[in-house]
């Protein structure tokens, strides 16, 4: 325990900085993923053929192992001199987030009952009004669940990104491995686990808070 106190005394600020770095990487990737995935998911509800194709591509994407994807991205991005660091990690995380976000948006909007949609039409709502006032609010909890999956997934994959120089909490673990320092490995792992739980907790709170009461179950 003493040793831990000493370790934390020295390393706490650094762990904190790395956690911030990790959060920024994952946070930005999720934001961009949302800007692509949610509109795409909504659009796909109007074209089932395209939906099948896109979901298939996204699901194959998710089976690509993270370290292999990084390995492929380094040569590709070194064409534009960004082979190592933030950019390939960021792009990989955006790609990985697509499946859960697109799929959940798509299924959630699809599952809004036809009666409800008809009722909205009958009330004279325009397509955009229907989307914003009826379909998205009713689909919200499922879309949020997709976002949560993506966030937790990305926090984990972000650890591997340390190997390609993207920083974040993975740095503690990779350093711990190369130095044979268990304190670094354990503190890094626990920090990642806590970060994942906090992020999931916050998103769950938002999900519950903004889910219309009548459909919360």
């Amino acid at each position, binding site marked *: 325990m003493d040793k831990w106190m000493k370790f934390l005394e020295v390393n706490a600020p650094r762990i904190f900085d790395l956690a911030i770095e990790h959060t920024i990487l994952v946070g930005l990737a999720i934001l961009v993923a949302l800007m692509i995935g949610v509109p795409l998911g909504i659009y796909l509800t109007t074209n089932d053929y395209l939906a099948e194709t896109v979901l298939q591509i996204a699901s194959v994407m998710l089976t690509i192992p993270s*370290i292999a994807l990084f390995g492929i991205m380094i040569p590709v991005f070194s064409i534009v001199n960004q082979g190592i660091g933030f950019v390939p990690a960021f792009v990989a995380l955006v790609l990985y987030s697509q499946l859960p976000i697109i799929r959940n948006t798509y299924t959630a909007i699809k599952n809004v009952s036809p009666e409800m949609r008809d009722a909205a039409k009958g009330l004279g709502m325009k397509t955009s009004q229907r989307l914003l006032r009826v379909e998205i609010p009713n689909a919200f909890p499922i879309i949020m669940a997709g976002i949560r999956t993506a966030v937790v997934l990305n926090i984990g994959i972000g650890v591997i990104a340390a190997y390609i120089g993207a920083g974040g909490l993975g740095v503690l673990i990779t350093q711990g491995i190369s130095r044979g320092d268990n304190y670094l490995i354990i503190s890094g792992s626990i920090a990642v686990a806590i970060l994942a739980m906090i992020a999931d907790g916050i998103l769950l709170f938002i999900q519950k808070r903004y889910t219309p009461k009548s459909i919360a179950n």
Partner: protein
Amino acid sequence: MNKKKIMSRIVSILVYALVAVFFIWAISNSYFDYIFSESGTFLHLLKQHLQLVLVSSLLAVVVALPVGILVTRRSFRRAEWIVSNTVNLGQTIPSLAVLALMISILGIGFKTAVFALFIYSLLPMYRNTVAGIDSIDENLIDAARGMGMKPIQILFRIELPNASYSILAGIRTAVVLNIGTAALAYVVGGGGLGVWIFTGIQLFDNGYLISGAIPVTLLAIFVDYLLRLLERKIVPKGSKPPQET
């Protein structure tokens, strides 16, 4: 063909084209050459990789399924909460950390990697086994009991067949995940194709990167496809698969 179909066709052609362009680019830069010039090493690493995945996955199946079945028995229902939460907590620990922590316990080498991969595969298999069995309609079990089926008959004739979709999906998820995680086995000296990926990263050698990463990727996609085929064969036709998640 209507407009919607054409659009979907265009998108898939674009994706194929992108993949083709990548391969042409990689081949023209001779990034795949190591696979042929060092084919001995490549085959050795591939074999190691497969061994890592196979041994750890088999062990995980042998442990996770019986535990999942056990905690869904009436008399063990209370244990389910504890087991499930422990396993869930375990999953938030990054795979890299699981590997790294094993070094301090088991040292460096193949066994360490296998053990870490085994631990990491338990969750998806266990969770899907429990979820699959739990999702079976209580009435079915009631009907089975009422007709005089023994608990063991209920398990093998009703519960497992109807949970098989979920259980097999759990195994597939775990195995595919495992193929990727096995690429990290390099860091604990476990070998596998990760060796070339990491060498590539350290040496900035695109050839090693691509020669390591592409086979791992193809392996994952191929095994995923194979296991899906297997699922389609094994799962009884009448036990409708639930929606993919």
